[in-house]
């Protein structure tokens, strides 16, 4: 079945994102499917700036800026309020970066997931605190340079497995998506809008200044992340039904080195480091396949 991307735009041109920003493209794609009955809330993240300074705004739906650690609960509050005063069904949307999700916002995220609040939670994951100038978060992959993990001592821990944490809450629907696969993203969103309860989307959002990559390579990098199994695209329903969308579980993964070495943040890695990362990716891929029963 062929999916087409809705033509309507809910994001104005003239926003302040960097060239090649995965996070900006991500919101553009998401709003196309969610449409006008949507209320957004942003915690502190790149989008706090991208949207534009007062009195400007780049989104064509209502938006409430909120505090760093409160994306999920502010959306839940908006949903509860809208339910009392709004006749139409409202998509209450928390739109947060990885810092606001993996780190400071994980308590409110867990609370909303456990209560199965009827909201959408999107994390546009650029794998570090990019808005403050590239500091490590618990979403930063092992081996990456950031301004708090210099090349002489790059990040020593693997990325936190947030999807597994969310899955442990048995939420009705969650998915990993990528700006490089807009049809897949749209298809999953169309599925999610029919779900009542907590919906979680993990979007890999390449960040040229933070990853030290060329803006024109954003889409290519997103594809390489998926094809190498570093960021496979899959869905989890009710915390137990896993479906792998991409890459094909029947084929071999592409090696990680090409993806890693295309990025300045990994350029210091030695052969052994890359080997460690490759083994880790292979192990996780096997685990995902097991969970999906393939």
């Amino acid at each position: 079945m062929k999916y087409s991307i809705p033509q309507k735009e809910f994001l104005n041109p003239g926003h302040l994102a960097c060239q090649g920003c995965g996070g900006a493209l991500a919101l553009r794609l998401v709003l196309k499917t969610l449409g006008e009955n949507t209320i957004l809330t942003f915690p502190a993240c790149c989008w706090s700036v991208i949207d534009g300074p007062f009195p400007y705004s780049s989104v064509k739906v209502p938006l409430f800026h909120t505090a760093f650690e409160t994306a999920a609960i502010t959306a839940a509050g908006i949903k509860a309020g809208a339910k009392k005063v709004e006749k139409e069904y409202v998509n209450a949307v928390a739109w947060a970066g990885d810092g606001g999700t993996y780190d400071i916002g994980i308590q409110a995220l867990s609370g909303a997931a456990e209560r199965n609040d009827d909201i959408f939670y999107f994390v546009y994951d650029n794998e570090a605190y990019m808005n403050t100038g590239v500091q490590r978060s618990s979403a930063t992959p092992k081996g990456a340079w950031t301004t708090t993990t210099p090349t002489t001592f790059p990040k020593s821990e693997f990325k936190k497995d947030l999807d597994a944490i969310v899955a442990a809450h048995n939420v009705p629907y969650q998915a990993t998506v990528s700006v490089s696969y807009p049809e897949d993203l749209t298809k999953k969103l169309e599925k999610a809008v029919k779900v009542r309860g907590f919906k979680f989307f993990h979007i890999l959002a390449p960040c040229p200044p933070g990853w030290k990559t060329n803006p024109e390579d954003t889409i290519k990098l997103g594809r390489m992340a998926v094809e190498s199994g570093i960021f496979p695209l899959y869905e989890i329903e009710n915390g137990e039904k896993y479906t792998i969308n991409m890459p094909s579980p029947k084929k071999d993964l592409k090696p990680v080195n090409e993806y890693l070495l295309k990025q300045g943040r990994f350029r210091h890695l030695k052969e052994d480091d890359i080997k460690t990362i490759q083994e880790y990716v292979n192990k996780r891929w096997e685990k995902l396949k097991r969970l999906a029963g393939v």
Partner: protein
Amino acid sequence: MSEQKVIMGNHALSYGAVTSRVQVIAAYPITPQTQVVELLSEMCADGTLDAEFIKVESEHSAMAACIGASAAGSRAFTATSAQGLALMHEMLHWAVGARLPIVMGNINRSMAPPWTIWSEQTDSLSQRDTGWLQIYASNNQEVYDSVLIAYKVAENEKVSLPVMIILDAFFLSHTSENVTLIDQKDADKYLKPYNPKYKLDIKNPHTFGGLTGPDWYMELRYKIQKAMEDSIDVIKDAQKEFKDMFGREYGLVEPYRCEDAETILVSVATAASTAKQVIDELRDKGEKVGLLRIRFFRPFPYDEVRKYLKNSKKVIVLDRNLSPGAGGIVFQEVKSALYNEQVKPKIYGYIAGLGGRDITVDTIGKLFDDAKKSEPADIKWMEVKI
């Protein structure tokens, strides 16, 4: 028909929320507040109250949920105490900056460590600079009535600020008193449904709270101060309308036997109720004493404080709170309010009853004795065992 009920202060808050037809409640339990939300949970469950109740995982989230709900255009309520209020601190500022008329009950409790659950006002007075209106109640009827008054004031377009209703732990929260509950039909005439000028509206989308530089931020703060100043008249009108409809009268302050008084005790909350007995006893002995209970601490009632105090000879401020390194917080504000007066009373600052220690008739009697024979000081400690 109005109804008489013997209820504790906590339940007076809950009933106040019900009579105000709150639409969204988000709360987290903490002693001594818990009964407020327990009763509201029951009422939501049995259909007495048609509200969404979000059982959040922290007080920080409780306030954030109220902020989201209020921004969406609904009437939001929560209640907390001490550590919970401190955890909310960031979001207290957020509610003010976003100009959201949330009403919250705070049960005054001392701050830990060491662990304590007993009454003291340092928790709420520490939040005085956030921009919340603050009402300190002295009995359960006042707690109940203040919820309706609070929404009426908060939702007034000239104000659009949140209100905190504050009651002493145990002395009010767990003490049962007779409370007259207002008939819902009458309450509905007093407090109309919340219909904000601005909200998160899918038919009329706007962005709220976007990045604002030095070119406009200051004007927004100016408008918050202006709203606080304007709220004085809004409060007076709301309380007059309340008196006309329900017969109970409230002011920004409550003066008690202040006319011709040479020595006036200033305090807030239940300590002020206890003081009334002392005033009566001293008046019986022919002493010219009076009491000024501050009901609204924010906005600070400068005019009323000056009016009642400026002709006295001595002012005694009793603080059940402490700003270490300075002293009693009410004392500091009362003193500064009088600074520009031509003739000023001598002013005494007393700290008593911290950590929930009783402030008895005896304690207050000793204050008057001490002020009679000693020179004024910014901080005097009552009944300290060291």
